[in-house]
């Protein structure tokens, strides 16, 4: 818990620096996105030390990126070590889509994460899936960076 706070604060400072230097040169918010997939950590929380709780997606996509797969492997290792823990995978979409389609897309994203965890030995009995569509954004901004943070699947401890 503490570590995550420290990491968060540390990151805020980095972001501030980035923002300043970005303003000096151009208006692009680079450094936190690859393509349109979020690569930063300022919304990320940790299930355990070094185990991030969420993965991010490209617009309209449910394909797991290399970074996402790495995160999910860490989650799988943590789940194998803590075999009593059950989880909910909460799938989300950004605000730039119709409500009903986004519900389906959130479900598809959470299932992409579920499938990957299962290939790393986590039983489907321990995983439930819940789509929020675009109903629970973490960032209320109306810009590409905010949207990239909101396209996510978050692993939440259920017990």
């Amino acid at each position, binding site marked *: 818990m503490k570590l995550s706070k420290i990491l968060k604060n540390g990151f805020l400072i980095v972001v501030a620096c980035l923002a300043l230097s970005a303003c000096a040169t151009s208006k692009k918010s680079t450094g936190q996105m690859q393509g349109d997939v979020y690569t930063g950590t300022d919304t990320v929380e940790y299930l355990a030390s070094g185990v991030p709780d969420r993965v991010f997606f490209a617009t309209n996509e449910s394909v797991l990126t290399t970074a996402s797969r790495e995160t999910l492997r860490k989650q799988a290792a943590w789940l194998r070590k803590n075999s009593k823990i059950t989880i909910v995978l909460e799938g989300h979409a950004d*605000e730039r889509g*119709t409500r009903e389609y986004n*519900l389906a897309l959130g479900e598809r994203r959470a299932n992409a994460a579920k499938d990957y965890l299962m290939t790393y030995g986590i039983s489907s009995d321990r995983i439930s899936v819940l789509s929020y569509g675009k*109903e629970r954004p973490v960032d209320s901004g*109306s810009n590409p960076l905010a949207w990239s943070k909101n396209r996510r699947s978050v692993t939440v401890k259920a017990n």
Partner: protein
Amino acid sequence: MKNFLITLIIILIPVKSFGLIEVDITRGNLNPLPIAVSPLSIDEESRKNFENILKKKNIGSEISSIVENNLKVSGLFNPLNKDAFLQEPAIANLKPRFEDWNLIKAQALITGKVSNVEEKLRVEFRLWDVLAGKEMMALAFTTVPNNWRRVGHIITDKVYERLTGEKGYFDTRIIYVAEEGPKTQRVKKLAIMDQDGANNKFLTLGNELVLTPRFNPTSQMVTYLSYFRNLPRVYLLDIETGTQEVVGDFPGMTFAPRFSPDGKKIIMSFAKDGNSEIYTMDLENRIVEKITNHPSIDTSPSYSPDGKFISFNSDRSGYQQIYVMKSDGSNVKRISFGKGIYGTPVWSPRGDLIAFTKLHKGKFYIGVMRTDGSGERLLTENFYQEAPSWSPNGRVLIFYRETKTDSKGKGFSAKLWSIDLTGYNERQVPTPTDGSDPSWSSLLSN
């Protein structure tokens, strides 16, 4: 609700329509018809009596104001300022002095009378063609006093129908999602109100997330999505009794519900293992049928008014597009081929058009196309808007619009808007809180 109107005695005096005024609603009306709505006259005893019951000083003028507001909001009429009226309401209702009304450029005139008959509200009204100097329509009906707002809506429906040749949409209600709180933690409740925003009532408390309520076209039932106990499921709600039940026994999320035109089935999506398919459930025998079968996202289904076809959106081509199929799931055809992505198809109650949401180059549009996909017409463009729902006469669409937040993520709002099929007369629909996901009821009285 229908029983509320105790009696609707129609004394329709048939008048040959020829030569009389007509309003063309098929094009954007840039010259709304000047109409004078003379306050309904009321005798002093009835006035006092209704003041006691309804706490309204003059129920006759109150009803006239409702008519006036409806006519104005329709965009087809221009109700004239009452200060210019020369004739007393009671006298005008007997025999208008057409020269006086002509003088203030009124082309049509509504007059009428309210009285208290055995504790009931009795209303009669007349529609006059000022230029021709003729009565076009006369109607009278009796109802319980509490229905006074509906009386105004019914009068408007009759006037609208007489002058445009099409059914009105004023004695109707809107069910929608009332929203409050920060964008990241919106509290959402089901709410219902009259078409003009009056009589707003919340139907849920906001303890769980609720989305996409839709009216049964044949009764006062509503289907919607609720996250009760964190299980997103389609529910059925009787808005008169307040009873609720889950629709079907699905092992996962059900969403995007709508009724069939006969009100006997619910069509919806069921998501499982990353795949959303369309299902129907018969409300009488509870038989569930799977309609689509494709590994893509198939959702937002909507029946044609004859029940023979279903439109829906699917991303089977790579992006969300609109498809039409027979109601048994056969003959699936893509109909949207324009640039951009397309969603939320809804079949017009007239059967000839499908309204949709379109996203193209970062802008959202509400538009209509014919049911084969031809004749696409975009009605309105905005930062974000979606989910059109048709007025029962198929002339107006209601939808919701969300604002772009500022650089600090502040300034978010969601509001209901309406626009005529012509692309004119775009208006915000008043709601006490923010609102989204509107659904328009059928006419309450027919």
